[in-house]
């Protein structure tokens, strides 16, 4: 489809309220008689909770209640994990899905990471609640601490969960181990790398928040919360945590100030505010702090990988093998274990046709904050390993890394392409994307630029990061085989009112991706109405049809087709009614630019508004036609979609200090059909900056006692606008066959290759020094030490 609206760079409808500060966030929700909750987090990474004495805190000014895990133990169930690695048979029900180690809403006998909630204090004001936290006396008996996955799996390591031997949540594999090992054993060239994809802290501008209310007369609960998945959270909280009727829980997510993966998870605060609202007979509000976010909210990445690539001397990759140790933190988060295994492992061959591949993941519990998704999750870890080792291989055989990539690409005529690891790539022209990126970058004629940089005391390096990123979760049955306990379809309702105005209600929830703009664009051209006549509603379970939320870049490619098909149904009904009114066959009704008329009779024109009114009145309907224009569609895609692209990073390293500048960044991304290029490019720029953050500065650092030393934004570095290069963005457009829009994921994909592109550029800049790899974050001091070795040896 195409038209004046769909595919055009409309400015986002949402933006004026956002930039004026007028949008309503959860923290803005204020209800009569509302009380305020604060959570007491453990100061220990691992300890027995021997006793919690709440008496002093209860006597503090304004305190209404101090809640501990002991009171909750028989009141609610642990937070479920719904993505269980390995494609287990559906465990549904019973809860907790056979997942040992599930997180209790408040700690009972043991805490397993710094910040693990031990008690909740409710007071008249937020300050009173926070002030009373210090008066809660907890008797801890510290236990030995383990903070890395490999150490947690070692013999004699402290065990976190009695029910989890060796701290091993899952040993997960994909691919053909024997064929891969055989290919490696017989290969001419074998290269290996040890890589650390360090822990990162998602830092949306808005920390999380929750407000709970309970109506004693109806028994209805309402939860306002920062959720990417209001429907899913309603389902899980009502049935599996609180044990209340599904119909008695309404979940509302108003404006969300960014998420990047973190807000798709269940957190203790959600059931707590609901429970406490019922217990106290007053609404209860909890708003996290920026410092609180650092230990209250899922963190990202954290895989230690060993990767092996085998190939011929002339550049043909014959096998790829990866072993990864994934650090899940103290508990299995809602979907964290799946992110760390399948999303990573099945993605490790990227754009390349590799005859034999195998990946194994050890997912382990440690005394750190639980792991979840971070923009590009799993796929970014896979592409970092792949694209680093492809470069390593190219250098080993003395070939240009770009040429080696070209030689091994999945060819454009090979789709659908089974990558041998569980993914079937839908469509693509990888060569076109790679060549476009290289062409725009001026690759490889950068020798003169390198010499010029050297004369300025800078080392210039150029690096490529190419990628395929599975998106559009997804086909529900396929996801069940992956171990996802729940459907992953989307839905949409389109109503055309008697006035001709249109309400589009979608199941997907926006966390800042301009749903209200882009989803309207799908409707505007089809119906031929003004953009101003279309409103898009979402994120309230009472108003919106079911949907699984926004994650994995799925909203537009799974929710969008639902809207598209619903509006096509609306059109069909209009045509049916028009045929009846005109007395012609349906096939003789022309629907064009908001008008219907009998073919060949341009004088006999009805507007869609006329038709909406006629169907609203419902007079003289043809037999079998229901009145009104109101259509709901549920869309379960036949398969995932696979956006892809190629990025080229140019870095300059100061030879005196090791300081690094990203001086150019060329990015080609293919998201299939684009609904709104302005919105998509905004996501792409943000995604690239996210990737630059990880490769250059971000690191969640735990000391050996499990204390997070990078515990605020003074010590955890996030990229700033001044750290952003001037992006040179281009795209290719390869529609997916799996939905009626041809749309693929877009929101996170450009994060996926960034770390590899920059790290490859750094290694290119110092290639003459014999450097094989530099661990992230690539800091000035690390580079200075590398450069210094040169001076020492000179």
């Amino acid at each position, binding site marked *: 489809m195409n038209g004046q609206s769909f595919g055009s760079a409309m400015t986002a409808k949402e933006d004026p309220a956002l930039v004026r500060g007028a949008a309503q966030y959860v923290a803005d929700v204020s209800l009569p008689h509302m009380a305020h909750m604060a959570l007491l987090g453990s100061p220990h990474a691992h300890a027995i909770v021997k006793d919690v004495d709440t008496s002093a805190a209860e006597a503090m000014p304004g305190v209404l209640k101090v809640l501990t895990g002991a009171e909750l133990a028989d009141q609610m169930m642990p937070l479920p994990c719904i993505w269980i690695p390995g494609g287990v048979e559906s465990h549904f029900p019973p809860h907790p899905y056979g997942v040992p180690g599930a997180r209790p809403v408040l700690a009972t006998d043991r805490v397993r990471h710094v910040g693990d909630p031990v008690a909740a204090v409710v007071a008249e004001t937020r*300050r009173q609640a*926070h002030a009373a936290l210090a008066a809660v006396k907890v008797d801890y008996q510290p236990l030995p601490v383990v903070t890395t996955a490999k150490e947690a799996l070692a013999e004699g390591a402290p065990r976190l969960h009695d029910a989890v031997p060796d701290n091993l949540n899952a040993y997960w594999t994909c691919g053909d181990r024997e064929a891969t090992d055989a290919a490696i054993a017989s290969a001419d060239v074998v290269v290996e790398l040890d890589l650390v994809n360090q822990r990162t802290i998602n830092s949306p501008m808005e920390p999380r928040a929750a407000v709970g209310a309970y109506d004693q007369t109806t028994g209805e609960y309402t939860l306002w919360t920062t959720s990417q998945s209001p429907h899913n959270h309603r389902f899980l909280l009502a049935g599996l945590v609180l044990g209340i009727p599904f119909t008695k829980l309404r979940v509302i997510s108003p404006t969300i100030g960014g998420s990047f993966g973190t807000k798709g998870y269940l957190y203790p605060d959600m059931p707590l505010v609901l429970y406490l609202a019922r217990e106290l007979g007053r609404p209860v509000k909890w708003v996290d702090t920026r*410092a609180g976010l650092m230990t209250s909210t899922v963190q990202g990445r954290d895989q230690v990988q060993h990767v092996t690539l085998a190939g011929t001397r002339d550049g043909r990759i014959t096998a790829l093998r990866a072993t990864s140790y994934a650090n899940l933190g103290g508990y299995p988060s809602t979907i964290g274990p799946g992110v760390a295994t399948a999303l990573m492992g099945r993605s490790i061959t990227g754009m390349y046709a590799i005859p034999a591949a195998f990946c194994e993941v050890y997912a382990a519990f440690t005394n750190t904050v639980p792991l979840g998704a971070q923009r590009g999750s799993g796929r970014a870890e896979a592409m970092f390993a792949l694209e680093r080792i492809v470069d390593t291989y190219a250098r080993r055989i003395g070939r240009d890394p770009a040429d080696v990539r070209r030689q091994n690409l999945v060819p454009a005529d090979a789709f659908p392409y089974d990558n041998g690891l569980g993914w079937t790539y839908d469509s693509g022209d990888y060569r076109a994307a790679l060549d476009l990126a290289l062409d725009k970058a001026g690759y490889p004629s950068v020798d003169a630029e390198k010499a010029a940089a050297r004369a300025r005391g800078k080392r210039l390096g150029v690096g490529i990061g190419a990628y395929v990123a599975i998106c559009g979760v997804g086909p529900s049955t396929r996801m069940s085989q992956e171990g996802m306990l729940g459907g992953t379809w989307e839905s949409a309702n389109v109503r055309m009112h008697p006035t001709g105005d249109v309400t589009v209600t979608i199941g997907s929830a926006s966390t800042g991706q301009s749903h209200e703009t882009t989803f309207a664009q799908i409707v505007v051209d089809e119906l031929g109405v003004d953009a101003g006549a279309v409103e898009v509603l979402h994120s309230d379970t009472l108003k919106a049809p079911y949907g699984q939320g926004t994650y994995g870049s799925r909203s537009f490619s799974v929710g969008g087709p639902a809207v598209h098909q619903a509006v096509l149904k609306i059109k069909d009904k209009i045509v049916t009614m028009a045929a009846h009114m005109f007395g012609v066959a349906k096939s003789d009704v022309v629907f064009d630019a908001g008008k219907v008329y009998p073919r060949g009779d341009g004088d006999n024109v009805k507007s869609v508004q006329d038709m909406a009114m006629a169907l609203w009145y419902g007079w003289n309907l043809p037999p079998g036609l229901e009145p009104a224009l109101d259509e709901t569609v549920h869309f379960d895609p036949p398969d995932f979609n696979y956006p892809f692209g190629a990025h080229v990073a140019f870095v300059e390293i100061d030879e005196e200090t090791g300081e690094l500048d990203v001086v150019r960044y060329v990015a080609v991304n293919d998201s299939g059909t684009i609904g709104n290029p302005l919105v998509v490019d905004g996501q792409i720029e943000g995604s690239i900056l996210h990737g630059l953050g990880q490769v250059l500065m971000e690191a969640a650092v735990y000391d050996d006692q499990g204390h997070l*030393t990078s515990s*605020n934004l003074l*010590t955890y570095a996030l990229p700033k606008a001044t750290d952003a290069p001037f992006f040179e963005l281009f795209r290719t457009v390869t529609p997916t066959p799996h939905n009626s829009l041809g749309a693929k994921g877009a929101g996170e994909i450009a994060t996926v290759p960034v770390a590899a592109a920059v790290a490859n550029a750094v290694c290119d800049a110092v290639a003459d020094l014999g450097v094989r790899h530099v661990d992230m974050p690539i800091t000035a001091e690390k580079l*200075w030490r590398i450069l210094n070795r040169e001076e020492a040896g000179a």
Partner: protein
Amino acid sequence: MIPQPVDYAAPRTVVEAVSVLAANQDARPLAGGQCLLAGLQTGDETAGVLVDLRRIPGLRGIRSTPDGGLEVGAMTTLYELATDPVVRSMVPALAEAAGAVGDPPIRNRATIGGNLAPSHGGTDLPAVALALDAHVRLAVPGGERDLSFAEYVLSERAPRVITAVSVPARAPHSRSAFEKLAQQAVTLPVTAVCVELTVQGNIVAARVARTGPNQLPVRLDQVEEALIGTDGDRATVLAAFADLPSEPFEGMSGYSAEYVRHVTGVLTSRAVRRIMSGEWAT
């Protein structure tokens, strides 16, 4: 944590401000809030009473003194310092340092007094104040005191408010420059250095001062001595730094003292090079 409520005073005179500070041991003067408000958020700072200096008239502005020096009101913003033509020509290092702090919203609020007040707070301007032998005028109970910044750094914390900063007239043929390596998370310095050279053919006088987190700002006498009589070539500067002990360069989490020392040397050599290559150098 969220900060607990604090009392707030908005005196209209310096005398009143000092008396509130003297009467409350946990009172803290508040200028632009660059350091204090961030510290209160993290819990690294405490305050029972915030004594807001912003309503006291007469604490803001930049003027030349009859003897050729400069006097800057303590509440003068870093933006004003960074853009003032007199500051830029007379003590360019001060303008450069002010312009290198934070971002525009911070520079529009942060003040010279506030940036200098926490003498080991890891801010930028102490390196400049020390190198240029600036003085601070302090309002104290019962009157005023004038201390060199070097003395101020070592003095006891007491009820007092910086009301003005003065920079003496510069020697002929002198010029200053400021360089820093900023932290990644915030733009506070990993290390910052201010250099002033008096040049007549070669360097005849040198003033070099350095600041960084969790370290008192210090003059680097050995580096100054090494520069005199030279043309300030890079090797001379780096050799002088290589001879320094590394301990004074410790204190920045995530950076080794060895690296910070080296970078301070590089930054110093860049400041020297900028000064020596300037057209004014005769």
